[in-house]
């Protein structure tokens, strides 16, 4: 079989000989009668429930700085990665060492850190999903991947109902990561084990003050 781009495209066209030459993609109807959202009124409450359902630790607060300090203390975190752009004042000084990714930390340092504190660009209530887009307060993807503890602080205003709503808001040119609970496997006799390669503990604090965080 001859390779190359034009030969392959030629074979595709030959295979589609039964498709009328004047048919356009839009002539094939796609019924979009499904819901934009399966969430009810209480989107934030649903988000918290669904996150907890998949094994994340969830709390709601109007005072993020206190909640973050309490969480980090409870976990006895020794060193915490803090990406650029996280709201000033979220992390108080404490007995933990703060690691900034500027200049970029080597992978060994990321691997050795006890945790990472980030925000998320959005949350999806129905699926209990955090959406990371490597934007402010999230950093490059490796930061929220290698440490074993991920503390993610999400302003309630960023939580949307369902998958279609969140995709409409996202810019796909940024690398996107959807996180739904801690990493998990069911590969051995279908027993669910939480914590394989990604962070084994996912903790989420929902900031419920009805405002976007101060920059």
């Amino acid at each position, binding site marked *: 079989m001859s390779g190359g781009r034009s030969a392959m495209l030629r074979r595709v066209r030959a295979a589609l000989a039964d498709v009328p030459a004047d048919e356009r993609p839009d002539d094939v109807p796609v019924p979009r009668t499904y819901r934009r959202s399966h969430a009810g009124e209480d989107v934030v409450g649903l988000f918290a429930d669904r996150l907890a359902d998949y094994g994340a630790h969830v709390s709601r607060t109007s005072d993020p700085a206190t909640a973050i300090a309490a969480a980090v203390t409870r976990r006895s975190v020794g060193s915490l990665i803090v990406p650029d752009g996280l709201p000033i004042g979220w992390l108080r000084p404490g007995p933990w060492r703060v690691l900034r990714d500027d200049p970029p930390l080597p992978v060994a340092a990321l691997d050795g850190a006890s945790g990472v504190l980030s925000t998320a660009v959005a949350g999806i209530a129905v699926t209990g999903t955090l959406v990371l887009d490597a934007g402010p307060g999230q950093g490059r993807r490796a930061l929220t991947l290698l440490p074993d503890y991920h503390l993610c602080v999400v302003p309630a205003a960023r939580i949307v109902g369902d998958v279609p709503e969140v995709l409409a808001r996202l810019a796909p040119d940024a690398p996107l990561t959807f996180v739904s609970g801690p990493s998990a*496997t*069911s590969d051995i006799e279908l027993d669910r084990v939480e914590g*394989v390669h990604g962070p084994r503990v996912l903790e989420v604090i929902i900031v419920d003050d009805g405002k976007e965080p101060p920059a």
Partner: protein
Amino acid sequence: MNTPHDSVVWLGVPAFPEAARSALADTRLRANLRKATGTIREKRLAATGELDDWEELRAAGAAIKRRVLRHLDRYLEQLEESVLRAGGTVHWAADAAEANRIVTGLVTATGEREVVKVKSMATQEIGLNEALAAAGISACETDLAELIVQLAGDRPSHILVPAIHRGRAEIRELFRRRMGDRGRPAPHGLSDDPADLAEAARLHLRDKFLRAKVAVSGANFACADTGTIGVVESEGNGRMCLTLPDTLITVMGIEKVLPSFADLEVFLQLLPRSSTGERMNPYTSMWTGPVAGDGPRSFHLVLLDNGRTATLSDPVGRQALACIRCSACLNVCPVYERTGGHAYGSVYPGPIGAVLTPQLMGVGQASSLPFASTLCGACYDACPVKIDIPEVLVHLRAAEVDAGRGVLPKPEALAMKAAAGLLGSPRRLAAAQRAVAMTGRVLARRGSIGRLPGPLARWSATRDTPAPPPESFRAWWRRTHTGTSAAEADR
């Protein structure tokens, strides 16, 4: 390690009827399969039942795939343009050999001798690991189940949970004996608790992730309008491979393209709920070309044909290319549940494998597979993109029968001819029924016949035949309603 499959079909394995017979005798395998498929079936029903518009989502998913397949050339060109615009490189591979040559060349150019891999059906299909090994490059599978399969020198038996045929005690032994050969050995005193086994895999693979310079992945979706590629997973091994290395090579079947990024709103609902029965899988990664300062610096997309255009050319069989590899059809299939995946002798087992494998390879290469089904239709009901698998199975069976015409007639064709003669005349039918009723009573044990005599034995080897009643319905009717004796009625 040398895994013995060469491409879609594992050459040298017995055809389905023979392979199924030995699988059916393996009671351990059957117990594992029953538990696994039953568990996933229940989870899936709960997850899909939560959405009251599940049928609307299925209809949309099916329609989007139909649109893509009918205009695949256009979408592939658009995808290529988008990926190039985002800074990626696109390669076109007509078959397995060409795809393997491209990937091997790309890895060799980096000077690396080791690659990490995300679970990928496409790279299994082309036998990439073996091709890389032949070039002195070792490929490390990082999905837990794929790692188990790789350490065992084994074959995957399920699309979603490839090591479904292995129990925890076997896996512990495998880790203890084999992990050390490929890197960090299993910890001392490793138990067979799945949590401990997962921890051993975490430690073993972490070293590899931190060192890796080249990763190979498959793709669940590729959006033509933006060039965005998506990979869904659970363990985080995908994120590691997609994020840490300098070079990322993604091998993707040409049918995986979607018209637009917005279409993900349908598939990111259909796939996790249909596959693992979760509202959303733990991790979904999407990227659009390489990003400065975050993740791989170079990104290569290999577009794979390998029999897909041949499949596309059949307007009935074409729909099999809509498959999103969720594996729901395996878990609901009464045949799969009893035989497991290995009996299908293909990277793609179960109902979807029975329609995909013969089409990708040509019917002659896997002629028994379209018959490995009861045509009960459970797969069609479960399919999130509404592939009418029974329709394609019947279509392929017809193609297989047609392929046998013209030369010596097969026993099946002779039997059909004989049946036509019998059924064409009431007198001949009645005579045959009387004969069968008499011999049937001699052969039957507890109401059924295990083995038929003569050439019929081949048919009865895998089926029980109900013992024929002493009297046919027509004879009974005449006797009870017209007063004539059975013997007279049949004349």
